[in-house]
């Protein structure tokens, strides 16, 4: 499989001086499901719109299946888009919407009918073929938009916040549906979202964007377990962020001075010199609370603190611990059986937080802080 999209140092500055996209380079493999993730205004939608051809970059190039399409208008690009508001034509029925592109292209009527039926079958909407968009529910409209976008078998399907207009229940179902559709069609999907769960659940790879730039690219588990900056760590899931200095590197392990304690972390490909400021991120569910410090594993990092509060959240309880260093540390406590609840630590009790070295993710502290 080769790369189907190559973005080379794309830059887009809007009249008025806002640089929405700043030096973005990205390669997407054929058949991949890639998600651009970031808060609103981070430039992710502009990247998608440049791939579709609705915006033209000030700098850089876009290659689609090896062909430079930077200067091609949208109607000449073999990509199709599912719009955030679905953009269904209100004066046409569902089947007219889906067959619109084929009809204008002059495809024979019988063939259009055939393909429209197949495309609607795929999203299970054959029974609503004669309805108008305003007679459909939000989820149905979304599926019409999908089938309209895939009927011509585009090289790439672009999805602009496809689930944002759906209510919570439907959204969860559609995540799985879209994922299945992707597997069934074998097309390349490029999706834009600000919802981290969506990005993690649906994509093969996630591109996290920050102020027009790529902050990190990786598989969902990469990004979750090894965020490369506090921005990524805090945007995806909840993280404890601690800062310290490297004291010693020995093989794969590094020792970090944090407050009055020493902590051990796994290097994980990073090169540090002694004395480097370093950020540690630890996921709340990858730490545990110990009543008795001696029961911890041999290598575990132990941090002393007192319980500030414990919030019951159903399957877990989230404990906030005031560490001796002054930082607050969050630990998720699993509640595998109902009696576990009565064992939860009480407010003010002294506890020890235990974290295995391989659960401490590190990266160089930004700005020397």
């Amino acid at each position, binding site marked *: 499989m080769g790369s189907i999209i190559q973005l080379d140092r794309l830059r887009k500055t809007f009249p008025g001086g806002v640089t929405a996209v700043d030096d973005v380079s990205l390669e997407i493999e054929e058949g991949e499901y890639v998600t651009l993730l970031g808060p609103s205004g981070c430039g992710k939608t502009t990247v998608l719109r440049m791939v579709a051809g609705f915006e033209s970059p000030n700098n850089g190039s876009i290659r689609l299946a090896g062909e430079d399409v930077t200067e091609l208008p949208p109607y000449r690009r073999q990509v199709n*888009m599912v719009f955030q508001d679905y*953009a269904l034509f*209100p004066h046409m029925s569902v089947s007219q919407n889906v067959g619109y592109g084929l009809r204008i292209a002059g495809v024979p009527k019988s063939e259009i009918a055939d393909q429209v039926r197949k495309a609607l079958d795929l999203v299970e909407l054959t029974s609503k073929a004669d309805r108008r968009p305003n007679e459909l529910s939000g989820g149905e409209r979304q599926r019409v938009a999908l089938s309209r976008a895939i009927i011509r078998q585009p090289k790439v399907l672009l999805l602009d916040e496809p689930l944002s207009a759906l209510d919570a229940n439907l959204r969860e179902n559609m995540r799985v549906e879209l994922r299945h559709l992707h597997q069934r069609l074998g097309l390349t999907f490029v999706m834009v979202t600000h919802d981290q769960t969506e990005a993690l659940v649906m994509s093969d790879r996630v591109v996290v964007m920050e102020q027009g730039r790529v902050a990190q690219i990786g598989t969902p588990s990469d990004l979750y377990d090894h965020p490369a900056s506090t921005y990524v760590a805090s945007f995806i899931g909840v993280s404890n962020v601690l800062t310290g200095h490297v004291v010693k590197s020995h093989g794969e392990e590094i020792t970090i001075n944090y407050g009055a304690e020493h902590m051990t972390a796994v290097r994980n490909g990073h090169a540090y010199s002694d004395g480097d400021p370093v950020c540690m991120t630890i996921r709340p569910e990858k730490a545990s609370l110990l009543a008795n410090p001696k029961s911890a594993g041999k290598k575990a990092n132990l941090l002393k603190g007192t319980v500030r509060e414990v919030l019951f959240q159903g399957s877990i309880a989230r404990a906030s611990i005031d560490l001796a260093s002054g930082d607050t540390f969050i630990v998720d406590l699993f509640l595998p059986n109902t009696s576990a609840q009565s064992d939860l630590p009480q407010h003010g009790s002294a506890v020890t937080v235990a974290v295995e070295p391989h659960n401490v993710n590190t990266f160089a502290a930004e700005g020397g802080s």
Partner: protein
Amino acid sequence: MKLQTRKRIATLGVLSPPVLWALIFLFIPYLIMFTYSFYLKKFPTFEPAFQFGNYAQLVTDAQYYQVLFRTAKISIMVGLFSVLLGYPFAYFLVFKIKSDRVRAMLYMAVIVPLWVSYLLRAYTWKTILGSEGILNSFLVWSGILDAPTDIFLYNQFSMVVTLTYIYVPFIVMPAYASLEKIPRSLIEASKDLGVRPLRTFWSITLPLSSPGIAAGMTIAFCLTFGDFIAPALVGGPNGFMIANVLTSQFGAALNWPLGAALSIVTLLIVLTIISLSDTLQRSGKLELE
């Protein structure tokens, strides 16, 4: 007092002024006019009767139905030309002007003439099209003509020009509103599906803005149909329209029953056009929701 009774009284209180207004100033006058249309002319006034002679005269006497046809023809032409000028302008404002300020300025430029008296704007065309007018002076000065011509003024051409000029703003306003309401994503979606800009205009933009066109065209048509100032100022002997005949029936000709029948016919024609256009606009509006 019961809540429901109180609500009912409140509803009546709110409704009664407009209902009274419509009754006194609209429905009763229409009713009087309708009654008059069956009366008999009897010099010097008329006498109550119930007969269809007035209506029959309108259908059989060429001078009346020809004026009706001419009025309809001029109204349709004014409606069409206003759309041909006003719609592209509105399209240009909505889709091609990037700056909000320039757009607002151009929009105002179209609307501002409405603040000037209609009479004055119609009169202006007299000074443009007349034999001593600006157009003739220019043609003679540039050598295209040897002597001034009088073909520009006092005919149906000058009436259509004048009325089109006057009603273009009435097209621009609803056309602008309906074009602005079309989500840009629809036009992008069309292009995304491989459809070129011109086809996109025909298949998406035009059908979705047709309610605005219909509204504007209806206004231009109906206002032209009842107009009597433009014919009087720039129409000349062949530019007489139905409203001029109407005024003369109630004035010089002193035939109120015939005038009443004529106004009922005019009213019916205009009402038909309005309700047709209304149906069209309703179906269009439903779609954009």
